[in-house]
């Protein structure tokens, strides 16, 4: 789970142009200025990296990295 959270943090940080250490997994992605299009870009990264299909509404439903990590973890376990 920590690896997943770390990977997601790196992806989000890359889109925000920030260092991963500046991103808290419990803070809303919108609060960092990550707009919905980049949230979808993260969804695309998840699909490619884990070879799974993700519901696009996740971009709105999962507001933090912690929530995203929980969701992806569940999907991977269900596979």
């Amino acid at each position, binding site marked *: 789970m920590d690896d997943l959270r770390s990977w997601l943090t790196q992806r989000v940080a890359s*889109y925000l142009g920030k260092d991963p250490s500046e991103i808290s997994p419990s803070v809303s992605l*919108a609060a960092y*200025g990550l*707009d*919905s*299009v*980049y949230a*979808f*870009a993260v*969804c*695309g990264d998840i699909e490619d990296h884990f070879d799974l299909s993700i519901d*696009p*509404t996740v*971009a*709105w439903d999962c507001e933090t990295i912690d929530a995203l990590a929980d969701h992806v973890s569940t999907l991977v376990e269900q596979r």
Partner: protein
Amino acid sequence: MTDLREVAVHLPPRRVAIASLQDELGLTDPQLRAFERFFGLSHIRREPGGTGFDLMLAAAGKLSELRGQEDRVRYVIQARSIPVATAYPRSDVHEVRRALGLGRAEAFTIVHQACASGLLAVDLAGRLLAAEGDPDALALILAGEKTYTTMVRTVPGAAVNGEGAAALLVGTGGGHDRVLGYATRTYGRFNSGLALTDALNADFQQVYPNAVAEVLIAAVDRAGISLDDVALVLPHNVNRVSWVRVCRLIGFPLERVLLDNVPETGHCFCADSFINFRTAQELGRLQPGDRYVMAAVGIGGFFSAMVFEH
């Protein structure tokens, strides 16, 4: 009761891949990928060298029921999203009126609800015609705009805008598509449109599906039916994923939202639902007696839905 006599559409033949517009639209690689992969966007139509006049006249020229009925047309209403598109004193809507020989018609433009102005125009046309008291009187509605400037070629974070036009002949009896109900709601706090602050933009993203759902439900309620009775939703073609979200919220089957044109035309300002109406007809998606809903959202916080019976 307001009804549609005929709907005609003109889509410029030139298909343009949005990937080829990446630099022009200032899209980053991740943004383009999200647009193509999740938003369902692929191509738009453009008519280089064509004018707004050409676009509207091409659609209106396909209205077979207009021929020989020109003197019955009392109003020509252009529904626009972009307030200014020609230099004064030129006016596309007046030039189209003249070109079609609609000498008895009063011509004007409405922009009050941005991309939701198309449905407003149908409602307004019905009210004006009803006030005339002449059951033979008609109104011509024109929708569809040029994407002259970079600023109007996208809705940032939501859509790529294309060129395409629709022309509607509206009456108050005898038409084949009757208006059963109309609902519109304005969220004034989003009035700055494309210039929303980050906080207001985040607010808009959250409000959006609920606001669409609210007008859909209000419109079917005014029509005296329920969402279960709706055979088809003719949406705006902003993107696919926003309709996935709305459908999930209201428990409406996504397959009953006609999304076929999202990858083909992108968002054509006020004309989307009308373009989709023609597509529904061509695909045999509307049967006599079907109730269907046209839905539109205008930048600035305008949400509208109109229920028809085919």
